[in-house]
């Protein structure tokens, strides 16, 4: 008996689509990799020698129990934390040994970030929240606002441009955060439990729009989550346990 396959749901049409996508991704080049990553916090080894490689345009879920090291892995790959050992290579270039200033510039220009909550500036209307990274990067205000406004329909946020974060739902706030992360046209989007504070319907709406927008723009996504239903939006998953990538055959 194998109940992993429930009956009665046809999988052929979209199954083919995802098989085609899998083939495309397999031939894509690696965009971000970590080699032999070790990271300690005091006496605790959060990462104990992790090798990962993410291909251009891939959406990868990083799963694992609390305390397994999945967020630490994300932070090392994103240049927020420096690993104690090993290397992080982005776009063919080693980034873990860059200085703080250079890593900060890289994070602003090539990476986007979405976290669980508390990311929007409460005093600013949604569209200005989305424009913020462009403004910080010195893009002229008028151009930044146009680019920000263009993100709203992509994330199902039409009409909410003038609302402040306190005047939208939790799911809408997360989608505004996704819009802000994507407005800089990042190469890699890092999302750490982006649906952690939402109910399942709102969470899935966020994932639907996040993955849809990322696929359309061919943005690579690293998604930390402990929820299988959220991980199911990715192309594949990495399971981190005790600071190592679990060696079960990956899909």
């Amino acid at each position, binding site marked *: 008996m194998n109940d992993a396959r429930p009956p009665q749901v046809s999988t052929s049409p979209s199954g083919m*689509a*995802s098989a085609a996508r899998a083939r495309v991704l397999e031939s894509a080049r690696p965009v971000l990799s970590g080699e032999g990553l070790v990271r300690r916090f005091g006496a605790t080894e959060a990462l104990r020698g992790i090798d990962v490689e993410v291909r251009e345009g891939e959406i990868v879920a990083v799963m694992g129990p609390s305390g397994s090291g999945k967020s630490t892995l994300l932070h090392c790959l994103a240049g927020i934390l420096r690993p104690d050992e090993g290397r992080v290579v982005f776009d063919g270039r080693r980034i873990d040994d860059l200085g703080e200033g250079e890593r900060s510039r890289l994070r602003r220009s090539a990476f986007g970030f979405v976290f669980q909550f508390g990311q929007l500036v409460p005093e600013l209307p949604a569209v200005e929240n989305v424009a913020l990274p462009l403004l910080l990067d010195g893009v002229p205000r008028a151009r930044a606002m146009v680019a920000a406004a263009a993100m709203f329909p992509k994330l199902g946020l039409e009409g909410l441009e003038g609302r402040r974060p306190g005047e939208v739902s939790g799911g809408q706030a997360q989608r505004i955060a996704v819009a802000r992360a994507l407005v800089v046209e990042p190469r890699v989007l890092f999302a750490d439990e982006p649906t952690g504070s939402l109910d399942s319907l709102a969470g899935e709406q966020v994932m639907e729009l996040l993955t849809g927008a990322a696929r359309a723009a061919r943005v690579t996504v690293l998604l930390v989550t402990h929820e299988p239903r959220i991980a199911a939006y990715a192309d594949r998953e990495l399971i981190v346990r005790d600071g190592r990538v679990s060696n079960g055959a990956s899909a």
Partner: protein
Amino acid sequence: MSTAHALLGLLEPAPRHGYALKRMFDRYFAPDRPLAFGQVYATLGRLERDGNVVVAGTDQAEGPERRFFAITGQGSQTLASWLAEPIDPEPHLQATLFTKVTLAVLTGRPVTQLLDAQRHAHLARMRELTTLRRTASLPNALLADYALFHLEADLRWIELTAARIGELANQIPPLLPAEELAPPHRETVE
């Protein structure tokens, strides 16, 4: 799912012949696994024998004779009580995965690997269903959701078990108490 009850439900609004029932059944409940004609007629035969349906007429306009079946009052009652009765909460995975985990512990095989392989298989299936749901009609999307929630529940069990393997190994009793083991070889030889 009970085919008999499904057929009763399809018959309740109006009498129908077997072929129409089969088509409706396939469309609503089994787009992937069409019902065999033999099964439709065998099921209708049993329902008729038990007084849940009657033959309400025949139609011989063209081709072979077609019998129309109608639900009886008793049939409606059978359907109503089946609908009202909660389903036995089935422990889907227990039979196989729990057995595998126990056997792996007993035989000293790595349990984590087994659980991780299962987790990847489950997630792969969840990905298929998630992709499917994106373009599915609402009824099919809900069917996919149902499967997704079940798979997720399995995964939570896998997760918890993975976290407790050490404890588990200490608590699973040894294969057999010593006195039930076969006597050592030398004692059987004179």
